């Protein structure tokens, strides 16, 4: 049991952290969310090879979005948090917080290198729908940040 959790942790923590960071745009905050997600999973779930990773990725999305929205994008972003610096990173975070959850999620999941099948499983949709969700999310992101 403990070995199973350790294997799951070592395999999935980097992607859980990546998902949280893509949404929160802040490494320290993302680390805290990733830790919370792993701890909560350890307490609440038994390991199931078929869906443990999906549950972790979904929890990472939900927890990060909840955190981002509850703070209204007011998390402290350090200089260099994004390619355009702190202002652009803050703009992206706020845009994600305003978007439909599925849109923010599909951007974060794909940027974290989840496959279309993995992304579909996390979102609870058919794999054929991921392209449409991604297309709409990209257009919404560009509109939100006036890119």
């Amino acid at each position: 049991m403990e070995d199973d959790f350790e294997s799951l942790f070592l395999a999935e923590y980097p992607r859980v952290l990546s998902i949280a960071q893509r949404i929160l745009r802040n490494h320290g905050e993302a680390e805290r969310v990733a830790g919370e997600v792993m701890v909560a999973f350890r307490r609440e779930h038994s390991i199931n090879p078929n869906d443990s990773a999906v549950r972790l990725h979904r929890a990472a999305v939900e927890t990060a979005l909840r955190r981002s929205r509850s703070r209204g994008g007011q998390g402290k972003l350090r200089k260099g948090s994004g390619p355009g610096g702190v202002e652009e990173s803050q703009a992206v975070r706020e845009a994600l917080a305003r978007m439909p959850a599925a849109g923010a999620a599909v951007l974060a999941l794909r940027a974290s290198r989840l496959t279309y099948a993995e992304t579909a499983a996390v979102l609870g949709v058919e794999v054929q729908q991921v392209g449409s969700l991604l297309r709409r999310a990209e257009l919404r992101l560009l509109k939100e940040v006036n890119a």
Partner: protein
Amino acid sequence: MRHLSEGSLRWMLDDPLSLADEDRAHLRKCRRCREAAARVIGDARRAAAVFETDHPALADPAAVLRALRERGVI
């Protein structure tokens, strides 16, 4: 034949094999779909540039797990 959806074109950008042979043949012949594909690709690249982070998550999961165990939370 019906034109390709923007979702299908977006999927094709990430996975060219996602298109069925008949869709691929249609795309080669259909100017409207080729223009749509160019739009989808351009938007996807612009969105990726906006969405990318300077500091992609780097993690040493073994060290993180060890720290959580030392704190007694796992």
